[in-house]
């Protein structure tokens, strides 16, 4: 289809007979319409997952998760403000195995978004945009997010 389009475009540009010219123009447009029926923009699923793309998607996903988890932060602070009984209830809820699992996931999301955010700030200033550095910084971000998460749970 591509070569046909190219030859049609050439023929349309250099023809001296007006009728032939219009006919070629018509064929050219039909050809474009046919090509436009194809799925032009490749979708996510045709790409092989790469460290760079996965980390990019994770940045947005963790951002949304953190925003949802901010409800828990507001609840916990509200319990402190409400008094000892409310605080005990909140602690029992967040201290249960399910609460701890949610908090573990949320703290990793927090530190991942924090570390990868710093990576983004470097990119915004034009630093570390080549492929090699991008992969290296991606691995550093993953390691740092795990280290910070472990550190926080050791303190807690």
């Amino acid at each position, binding site marked *: 289809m591509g070569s046909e389009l190219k030859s049609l475009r050439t023929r349309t540009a250099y023809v001296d007979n007006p009728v032939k010219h219009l006919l070629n123009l018509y064929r050219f447009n039909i050809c474009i319409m046919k090509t436009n029926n194809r799925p032009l923009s490749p979708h996510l699923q045709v790409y092989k997952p790469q460290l760079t793309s996965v980390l990019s998607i994770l940045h947005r996903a963790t951002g949304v998760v953190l925003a949802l988890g901010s409800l828990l932060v507001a609840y916990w602070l509200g319990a402190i*403000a409400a008094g000892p009984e409310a605080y005990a209830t909140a602690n029992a809820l967040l201290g249960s195995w399910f609460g701890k699992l949610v908090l573990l996931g949320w703290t990793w999301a927090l530190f991942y978004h*924090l570390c990868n955010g710093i990576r983004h*700030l470097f990119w915004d200033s034009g630093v570390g945009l080549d492929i090699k550095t991008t992969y290296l910084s991606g691995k550093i971000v993953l390691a740092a997010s795990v280290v910070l998460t472990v550190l926080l749970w050791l*303190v*807690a």
Partner: protein
Amino acid sequence: MSLMTPLKKARGLGSAKDGTHHWWVQRVTAIALVPLTLWVAFCVACMVGEPYAFVLSEFQSPFNIAMFVLFLFTAFYHASLGLQVVIEDYVHHEGLKIGALIGMKFAIVLTGFTAIFAVLRAAFGS
């Protein structure tokens, strides 16, 4: 038929409709959140398992109150900017998009103010 030039038609119609302000504020809040988040996260970690009186006493120092309030304000601001981009990217129906954006902003402001006032109440008593 419009007499506007193509440039005039395009001006002010970027995806966010407000130039670079959104982009800049997202970066500035991000920079501020690096120290604020680390401080607040490890401060909260130190409170885990401690008695209520100790937790309350953590909210007595002016510096801690400032760090918590600044963290909450900046984090919720940053979240509203981020969620705005996510909604603009994925919700294509104009009415739904505006509804989702307004609903999200209201929810963020309500949650954020609740959290900030909770810190202030813990700090100054009721």
